């Protein structure tokens, strides 16, 4: 084996040292989430800004991070262990397995919602159909208009929330609108009212458009859409991601009052019943990713599921983010940019990602 001469080894070594000194922050090997591996842990990868716009990231990301997106005009996210675990769950999805249920849980500010957003982007790059509920607690706690269901007596429809959901679905699946969602057809006749109906063998986009055109039918259309997507996923025609923020609210409490002034239970909401069906074993080829939100008091029965914990920052992760902020000139004060400042930031934020970002925001 021929050994390299000492002089060239020395220059190689010093060249790599200067390269790492020049590189401003820890970048992942690739911006494609499917290429991320253990070697990319603690490194930042970028989500293209137009993808972030198409996926409505302004609405689904935590508000502070959405502001960061707007200010820095860039979406750089740390690759953390919880996201790699979610990627492995994505790769396990197949037509022979029932819908895989994954629950993200963890302390406040550790990256549950952000990991969900990363998962949505991954599904977007892999051409999965995305059924993303921005916040189930919106349905149970924010009372907009309420309507008694005509499909099932005793059930409560939420027309405005259903329309918002259908708009969000349309926005996030624009890239599949003319392809998969138009090619796949309805499997039965849907008779909405005496006059409105969607016959069999019509594209799925018709269900969504029907719901958007007539808000009083929107909730029934959401149910029909969910049913059709489950059937087509099971047949292998599409892969489905159901991403719900605060999914444990499906089994929680509501503030919606019924006619006799008592609070409705979640069992009485049609939207909740429609989404609970994703936790059954009767469909395949999909991933149901939810977040166990601490704000909700719930008793969720969705066993078996894969729990993924989101952790506080390690020193390396916090340093990577600090280097990124320095490179983007987001950290402006000299003290914040120094090593001593970084050490203080570790302990002032107690390694909590949310508090770390809040401290870097005004420094």
């Amino acid at each position, binding site marked *: 084996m021929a050994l390299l001469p000492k002089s060239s080894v020395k220059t190689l070594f010093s060249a790599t040292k200067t390269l790492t000194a020049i590189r401003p922050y820890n970048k992942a090997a690739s911006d494609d989430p499917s290429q991320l591996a253990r070697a990319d842990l603690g490194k930042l990868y970028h989500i293209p800004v137009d993808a972030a716009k198409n996926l409505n990231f302004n609405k689904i990301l935590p508000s502070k991070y959405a*502001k960061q997106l707007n*200010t*820095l*005009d860039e979406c750089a996210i740390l690759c953390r262990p919880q996201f790699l675990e979610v990627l492995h769950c994505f790769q396990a999805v197949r037509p022979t397995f029932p819908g895989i249920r994954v629950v993200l849980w963890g302390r406040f500010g550790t990256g549950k919602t952000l990991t969900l957003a990363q998962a949505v982007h991954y599904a977007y790059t892999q051409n999965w159909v995305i059924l993303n509920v921005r916040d189930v607690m919106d349905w149970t706690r924010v009372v907009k208009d309420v309507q008694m269901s005509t499909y099932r007596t005793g059930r409560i429809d939420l027309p405005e929330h259903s329309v918002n959901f259908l708009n969000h679905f349309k926005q996030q699946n624009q890239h599949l609108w003319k392809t998969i969602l138009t090619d796949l057809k309805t499997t039965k006749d849907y008779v909405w009212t005496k006059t409105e109906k969607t016959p069999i063998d019509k594209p799925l986009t018709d269900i969504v458009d029907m719901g958007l055109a007539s808000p009083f039918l929107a909730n029934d259309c959401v149910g029909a859409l969910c049913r059709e997507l489950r059937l087509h996923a099971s047949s292998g025609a599409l892969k489905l991601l159901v991403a719900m923020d605060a999914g444990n609210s499906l089994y929680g409490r509501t503030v919606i009052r019924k006619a006799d002034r008592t609070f409705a239970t979640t069992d009485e909401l049609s939207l909740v019943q429609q989404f609970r069906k994703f936790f059954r074993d009767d469909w395949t080829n999909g991933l149901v990713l939810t977040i166990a939100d601490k704000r909700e008091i719930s008793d969720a029965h969705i066993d078996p599921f894969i729990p993924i914990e989101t952790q506080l920052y390690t020193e390396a992760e916090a340093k990577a983010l600090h280097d990124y902020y320095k490179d983007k*000139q*987001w950290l*402006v*004060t000299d*003290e*914040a940019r*120094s090593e*001593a*400042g970084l050490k*203080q930031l570790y302990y*002032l934020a107690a390694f909590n990602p949310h508090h770390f970002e809040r*401290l870097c*925001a*005004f*420094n």
Partner: protein
Amino acid sequence: MMPPLMASLRSSISGIRMMSQTSVALAHHSRLKPEKITCMKSDESPVFYRDHVVDKLVRVILKDGKKEIARNAVYDALEIIKRRQYKQWAKAKEDEKSTIELNPFVVANTAIRNCRPLMKLQGVTRGAVTYQVPFPIEESEAEFRAMKMMREVCRQKAKHGETHLKDILATELLAASKNEGLTIQAKQELHKTCEANRAFAHYRG
């Protein structure tokens, strides 16, 4: 040449006068008067972002003893200032970039310095008539009056339009740092009144 341990013992025994100038400057004021040791206040913790003007602004804005709300409002205002300046800086051409101040603490300090009045008006009663007499003002009082004027302006603005204090305060601080805005106007009116009442200056006594 004394060994280092003995030298440090010597200095601690003989007290403050043996301490070097740098250690006096960095020490907390309670350590400089060892006879009266007081506990540190919550807004004096030695964090790297400690700033006299910002802390005083928090205290002036404070209402009903709700320190967390006041502190969050001021730090959120600093964040908003930084975001607005950052957006401008990102859009600016290379030669203009250095003219934009990104550091929100510097902006806040400049703003309060620009709003400082040079004199104050104090009522002096002579023969059942109270005259508004211009008096000289200390630096710390001038700083306080600047912050109080800004606070009153922000509270007035809150009655119509922008409702969050952080947004209103950010706008005011940014404007004042450029010598514009309602607080600067209020200061200039105070100066005008002082100038108009300069005849009463001999009532100062």
